[in-house]
C-alpha cells in the first residue's frame, strides 16, 4: 500500500530532487551512500553551494560598513536573507529575526538576556523530558546564576509528552517554559500551539527549540504565537554555523544585549554606549555573512520545493520505514508517538548502537548512534543510546530497504 502512496506525483517531484545534492552522488565502502542522518545535519543542495560560492566570488565585504560597492552588495545579500527568513516563518517584522550561530546560541541568548535579569530564587523554568542538551544546559546555567529551579515535565513510553502532568506543573512560580518542537532523538512532535496557549493564559513566556521543526513542516510564528523560536540553518539544507532566533519585538526591545562589540552599537564613548536598534542589538561583531547567504538560499530552495510536499513525502517514508523496521526480529523501536517527524530510533537486542552503526557504515549506510545529545531521553528508557535513522527530502524507499538489509547483516554478525 505504501508503494501506491509513493507513486504519486508529489513523490516523483521530490525524488528527482536527489540529484540536487552532490554529496549523495558517491559510494561509501563500495556501495551507493545511503544518508539517514539528516537530523544531525542535512546535506546541502548545489543551489545553496552555488549561492555561497557566488557571494564569496563576487560580492564579499563586511556588512553595514563602508560606502564602497562590495560592502553595499554584501549588506544587501545579508539583509536580503533576513527578509527571506522573515517571510519563511511569517514573522511580523524583520526586527524579530536575530541571526545567530545556531539554535544553541539562540537559546543561550534568551536564557541570559531575557531570563537572567529577572529570575529570583524560588522561580522555576519548566522544560520537558524530551529536550536536547542545548535546551537543558543553558537553563541549568541561568538557574545556577539566579537560584531559580529547573523542573522537567515527564513523557510516556511512546516518547510523548505527558500533557496533563505538564499543564499541572504550570503555576505562578514558573517564569519560563522551554520545549522542543520536534524531538531529535524520538521524532515526537510536541503540541506546541496548545503549550503556548496554556502558558500565555498564565502570562508565562514560551521558547520553542525548532531545530527539528523547520526542516519538516511549515512553521508560522504568528500562528504558533510562541515568544521565542530558535533554529539552525544546517538542519534545513543550509550551511553550519548559522541559525535564527525569532523573538517577539516587544520582548526583544526590553532585553539587554547578549554580547557587546561592533555592529550592535549606535554610539560608543568611554562614558557609555548607545545600543543599536533591533535586530542589530543582538548581532555583535562581523557575522557569518556567507553562511547567512547560504541560509537564504536554503529558504529559497525549501520554498520552491514546498514544505507541504516535503512533509507528505517524509510522512509516507516514515510510515514505510516503521513498518519495515517493525518486521525485523529482535528490534526495539524507541519513539512511537502518534504525531512524529521522520526520525526513528531503534536497537537490536544485545547489540550496542555503536556496533550496529559500524556495521551499517560498512555497507554505505550513515545513521547516528549514541545518545543524540539527549542523555535524559536515553536515561528514561534505561539505555545508553540508540541507532537513529532520520530522513530528509532526498531519501526514498530504496534507502530504507538498504537499511533493513544492513540491520539483517548486523543480526548475522552478532547471531
Amino acid at each position, binding site marked *: 500500500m505504501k508503494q501506491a502512496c509513493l507513486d504519486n506525483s508529489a513523490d516523483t517531484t521530490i525524488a528527482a530532487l536527489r540529484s540536487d545534492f552532490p554529496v549523495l552522488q558517491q559510494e561509501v565502502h563500495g556501495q551507493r551512500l545511503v544518508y539517514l542522518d539528516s537530523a544531525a545535519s542535512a546535506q546541502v543542495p548545489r543551489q545553496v553551494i552555488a549561492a555561497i560560492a557566488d557571494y564569496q566570488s563576487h560580492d564579499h565585504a563586511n556588512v553595514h560598513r563602508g560606502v564602497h560597492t562590495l560592502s553595499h552588495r554584501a549588506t544587501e545579500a545579508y539583509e536580503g536573507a533576513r527578509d527571506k527568513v522573515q517571510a519563511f516563518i511569517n514573522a511580523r517584522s524583520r526586527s524579530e529575526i536575530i541571526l545567530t550561530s545556531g539554535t544553541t546560541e539562540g537559546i543561550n541568548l534568551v536564557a541570559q538576556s531575557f531570563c537572567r535579569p529577572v529570575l529570583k530564587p524560588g522561580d522555576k523554568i519548566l522544560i520537558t523530558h524530551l529536550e536536547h542538551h542545548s535546551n537543558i544546559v543553558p537553563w541549568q546555567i541561568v538557574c545556577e546564576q539566579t537560584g531559580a529551579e529547573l523542573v522537567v515535565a515527564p513523557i510516556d513510553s511512546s516518547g510523548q509528552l505527558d500533557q496533563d502532568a505538564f499543564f499541572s506543573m504550570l503555576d505562578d512560580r514558573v517564569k519560563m517554559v522551554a520545549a522542543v518542537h520536534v524531538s531529535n532523538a524520538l521524532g515526537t512532535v510536541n503540541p506546541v500551539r496548545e503549550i503556548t496557549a496554556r502558558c500565555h493564559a498564565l502570562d508565562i513566556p514560551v521558547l520553542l527549540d525548532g531545530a527539528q521543526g523547520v526542516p519538516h513542516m511549515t512553521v508560522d510564528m504568528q500562528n504558533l504565537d510562541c515568544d521565542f523560536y530558535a533554529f539552525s540553518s544546517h538542519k534545513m539544507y543550509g550551511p553550519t554555523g548559522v541559525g535564527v532566533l525569532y523573538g517577539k519585538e516587544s520582548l526583544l526591545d526590553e532585553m539587554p544585549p547578549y554580547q557587546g562589540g561592533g555592529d550592535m552599537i549606535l554610539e560608543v564613548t568611554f562614558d557609555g554606549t548607545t545600543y543599536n536598534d533591533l535586530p542589530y542589538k543582538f548581532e555583535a561583531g562581523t557575522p557569518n555573512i556567507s553562511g547567512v547567504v547560504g541560509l537564504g538560499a536554503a529558504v529559497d530552495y525549501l520554498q520552491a520545493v514546498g514544505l507541504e510536499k516535503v512533509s507528505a513525502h517524509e510522512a509516507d517514508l516514515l510510515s514505510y520505514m516503521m513498518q519495515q523496521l517493525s518486521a525485523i526480529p529482535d528490534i526495539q523501536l524507541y519513539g512511537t508517538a502518534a504525531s512524529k517527524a521522520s526520525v526513528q530510533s531503534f536497537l537490536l537486542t544485545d*547489540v*550496542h548502537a555503536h556496533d550496529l552503526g559500524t556495521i551499517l557504515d560498512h555497507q554505505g549506510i550513515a545513521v547516528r548512534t549514541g545518545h543524540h545529545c539527549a542523555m535524559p531521553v536515553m536515561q528514561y528508557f534505561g539505555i545508553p543510546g540508540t541507532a537513529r535513522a532520520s530522513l530528509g527530502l532526498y531519501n526514498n524507499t530504496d534507502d530504507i530497504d538498504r537499511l533493513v538489509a544492513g540491520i539483517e*547483516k548486523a543480526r548475522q554478525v552478532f547471531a
Partner: protein
Amino acid sequence: MTVATLQPNSELRDLYQELILDHSRRPRNFGKLGDATHIADGINPLCGDKLRLYLRLEDDQVVAAAFEGTGCAISVASASLLTEIVTGLDRTTALNYFEDVVAHLNGKLPAGLHTPELGRVQALEGVREFPARVKCATLAWQALESAISGQSRPATTE
C-alpha cells in the same frame, strides 16, 4: 539481496572476531570488586558509554581487577581482556602495557614499545580500520591509567 552479499566482509570479521564477541557476550570479572584499592571511571562522551574499573593492588602488584558498566562489544571486550591481562602485573608493567596498547591501537607501534608481546590484545587491532571505534577499544585502558596513577577525574577518550 543474496546470501553471499550478506556475509560480513573481512574488515568486519577482523573487528568482530570470535574472541571479541565471546568477551562481549560473557565479560570476565564483570561486577564490583568489594575490596578494591584503586577505582577509576572511564567515559566516552561521544557515545555516553561509561565503565568503572576496580583494581586491588598489594605491594605494588595488581592482584585483582574487575569492571562494571555499559558499552559496545568492542569496549566491553577490551575491558574484559584488560582485567585478565593486568592481574598479576606490577604497577610499572601495567602502566607500560597501557601505553603500548593505546599506541598499538592508534597504529603507532613499534615506537615506544615496552612489552614485547601484546598477546590477546591484538584481537582488538581490527579497530585500526575503523577510526571512529579506536576510542571504544582504549576506554578501559585509559581508566587503568587513571586508577593506577590515582586521578580523581574520570578518564575520558577525548
